[in-house]
């Protein structure tokens, strides 16, 4: 078991040591040591992206009582290849009035944060491409770059709809960045550090069954934090009910109206990569990262959790209609933000009662108090935000 679990770590150290024995200069081996995990990330996650597009179309199909793609290869497994080829072959049209620099640079600047973000996620036991003590903050800082890239895309293509779409998606990403950060604050409070490896090791306990109970999602504040984080994450990456920016029914395709061919594929890639990264971070923060019973290697646990979260995202996409702009904004500012603020308060209470009352009583009391506080705020917020009750429709003209 240990061998499979550490397979990548051993492989890397083996390669580095053989290079050293070959007598390469030490800075080159250091460089190669850094490049290896980077290439792994750049290969594995776009492959997951390809698999994800196929999975999404299959699940959405089955949800809507039809088969998914089944023509290209067995069960349509070559569909991503077909999509990719189609994207590459499509002619790349740049509008004449477009601002060439912005138009061209935007898709690149959208993909860069989506890929850089993976550098901080702990994929398995001591398998972290880059481990700094500001990893979580770095994650949010880098993912806020795509806001600007969206603006460049919308603004560069000189098209009313893309500008509107860009403005909407910027407003959406900014207003959902707040609940996203605040949902992650409780985890940092409890773990006491921004280093993601420490967050994961704080959730790990020994024993076959033990390693489940210590995940943050099983604490009241963790559960609410996970929901807020997951929903805000979906909104941040313009997915499913929040994909207003590229709502075909409203403004054609939002900021990527004027893009075709490979540039459009880049936007597509960036959206899915950031969805994978967001569910990866949710797994690390609340679902115990690569922790799991010893049956499977640690990195498989991490990928399993990502796949489960992505399937839930796809499931939600197949279920809920798209939100209007005001509902979208209202939901973030009037519901998610106050909820995550109260969540931080509840974590403080939870931590304090656990610390002050020793033993199991303290744990139960903490659980109870935090749960009650959060439940009350949830119901209260829902009552406030409940829109006008849907009354029976009255037809004024009918009775003329």
């Amino acid at each position, binding site marked *: 078991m240990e061998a499979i679990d550490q397979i990548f770590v051993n492989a890397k150290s083996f390669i580095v040591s053989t290079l050293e024995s070959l007598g390469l200069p030490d800075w080159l081996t250091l460089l190669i040591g850094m490049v290896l995990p980077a290439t792994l990330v750049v290969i594995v996650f776009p492959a997951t992206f390809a698999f994800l597009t196929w999975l999404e179309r299959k699940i959405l199909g089955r949800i809507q009582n039809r088969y998914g793609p089944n023509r290209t290869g067995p069960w349509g497994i070559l569909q991503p290849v077909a999509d990719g080829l189609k994207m590459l072959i499509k002619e790349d049209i740049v509008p004449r009035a477009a601002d060439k620099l912005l138009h061209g640079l935007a898709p690149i600047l959208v993909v860069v944060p989506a890929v850089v973000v993976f550098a901080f996620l702990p994929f398995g036991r001591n398998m972290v491409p880059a481990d700094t*003590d500001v990893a979580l903050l770095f994650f*949010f*800082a880098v993912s*806020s770059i795509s806001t*600007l890239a969206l603006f460049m895309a919308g*603004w560069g293509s000189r098209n009313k709809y893309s500008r509107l779409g860009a403005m909407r998606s910027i407003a959406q990403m900014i207003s959902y960045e707040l609940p996203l950060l605040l949902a992650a604050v409780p985890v940092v409070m409890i773990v006491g550090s*921004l280093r993601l490896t420490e967050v994961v090791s704080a959730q790990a306990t020994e024993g076959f069954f033990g390693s489940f109970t210590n995940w943050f999602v099983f604490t009241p504040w963790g559960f609410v934090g996970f929901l807020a984080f997951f929903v805000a994450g979906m909104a941040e990456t313009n997915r499913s009910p929040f994909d207003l920016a590229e709502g075909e029914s409203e403004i054609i395709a939002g900021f990527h109206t004027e893009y075709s061919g490979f540039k459009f594929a880049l936007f597509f890639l960036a959206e899915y990569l950031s969805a994978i990264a967001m569910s990866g971070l949710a797994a690390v923060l609340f679902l115990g990262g690569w922790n799991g019973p010893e049956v499977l290697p640690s990195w498989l646990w991490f990928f399993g959790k990502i796949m489960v979260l992505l399937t839930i995202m796809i499931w939600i996409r197949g279920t809920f209609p798209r939100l209007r702009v005001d509902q979208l904004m209202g939901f973030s500012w009037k519901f998610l933000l106050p909820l995550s603020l109260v969540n931080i308060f509840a974590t403080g209470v939870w931590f304090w009662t656990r610390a002050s009352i020793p033993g199991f009583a303290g744990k139960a009391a903490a659980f109870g108090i935090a749960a009650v506080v959060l439940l009350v705020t949830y119901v209260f917020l829902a009552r406030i935000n409940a829109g006008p009750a849907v009354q029976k429709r009255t037809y004024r003209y009918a009775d*003329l």
Partner: protein
Amino acid sequence: MTLEQIGFLVLATVTLSSALGAVLLKNLTHALLSLVLSFFGSAGLFFSLHAEFIGVVQILVYVGAIAVLFVFAIVLTREAQGDAGTLRHLGGRGKILGGLTAVVVGALLVRMILLAPHKLLTDAARAQEGGGTVGEIGMALMTSYIVPFEVASLLLTAALVGAIVIALNEVKPAASTPAASSPPLAPPIGRVR
């Protein structure tokens, strides 16, 4: 020329050239984007000084928030300079004068730094190690700097509310919509009762 010095030179040139771009570029959006590049450059400089926290906060606050503020400001005031956003600089005389003072100030500063006798400036080995960990900053913020921390949060709220009040559209009282007690249904078309 160790790896580190090369890195520093690259970062310095990127930052300074993009800062120049931000100031001199005609097209407004291009100027803004080179400003963002200079923010990245200075964040890189912070990293080279091993102050990761400030570098990350720099990216988060400047690139994530302030640059977007500028973007919205440019979008909301587009018509002023026409679409191409080309700017006529100040009249010839104003520009030269302004440029001259800036160059003089720059030259003075640089000369002062180079001629400073103090060994601190020139001895590269003085760079200390350690310090600047997030935990340390957090502790300091919460213990010895708690008052400025609270005052800063007050300041931010005041700025937030002030900015919204200033920038809000004045709602002309006359044009307020009729009392919305009964749902404002359109009068029946054509059917004269």
